């Protein structure tokens, strides 16, 4: 039987949310080597025309990959990530005091016996920040 049996296009497979604060962005800058000051320093972000410090797009995309892999592990899917993409539509703005909340909803976009494509809607502050992310899991 297919590892993706029981899943149909349109099914919501998970919803989740993450909180993001400045310390998370500092840790991500260290880990990724992306030290662009718009992700770390309020004055630099504002000088670049942004409302405040913004998360690295790749940080947000990384959180999506984490959510997908955690869901696949919980669902005990014997599958690997084969493709993963996103367009960075709007920034995730991260104020120093409150941080930001990133909400995700993953739906099945396509499914057959060997592969499952998810479309993950990602929102922060009411904006769609990724437009959308897509992840394809391939049966092992």
């Amino acid at each position, binding site marked *: 039987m297919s590892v993706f049996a029981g899943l149909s296009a349109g099914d919501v497979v998970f919803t989740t949310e993450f909180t993001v604060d400045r310390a998370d962005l500092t840790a991500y800058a260290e880990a990724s080597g992306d030290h662009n000051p718009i992700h770390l320093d309020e004055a630099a972000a504002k000088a670049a025309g942004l409302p405040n410090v913004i998360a690295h797009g790749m*940080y947000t995309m*990384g959180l999506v990959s984490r959510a997908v892999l955690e869901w696949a592990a919980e669902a005990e899917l014997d599958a690997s990530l084969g493709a*993963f993409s996103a367009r960075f539509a709007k920034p995730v703005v991260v104020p120093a005091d409150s941080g930001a909340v990133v909400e995700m909803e993953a739906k099945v976009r396509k499914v057959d016996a060997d592969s499952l494509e998810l479309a993950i809607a990602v929102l922060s502050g009411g904006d769609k920040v990724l437009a959308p992310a897509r992840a394809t899991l391939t049966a092992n």
Partner: protein
Amino acid sequence: MLNTSYVGRSLPTTAPAVITAESVTRFARALGMSDTDAVPPTYLISLTLPAADPLIEDPDFGLDFSKVLHREQRFAYHRELRAGDRVSCTVTVESIKTVSGNDLLALRTDVTDEEGLAAEVWTTLFVAGGEA
């Protein structure tokens, strides 16, 4: 404006480098992921962007990195990479599109290990046009 004569050009392949366990752990922790030896899906960006440095630093190419925003990102994974694997990167300028005075620069990086192509990484950068 970017030098469109670079479209189709590839940078020299980087020397094989070991994916260190320490770098994988740090990346996984920064995303709150459980730390295994498996490379997190987006970890590859920490290899592919530095591989593009010679292009960013090439005055003939004309890229002002202070005007760059990350627009799109795509990964295709052909094999699971793990800490300890040795990989090389080959960056190719796939396209440059000019839209309303701004450039969209599409780069593809082939990530290869001893067995061949392990992953492909596409990065599209939005480069804001100059004051002119």
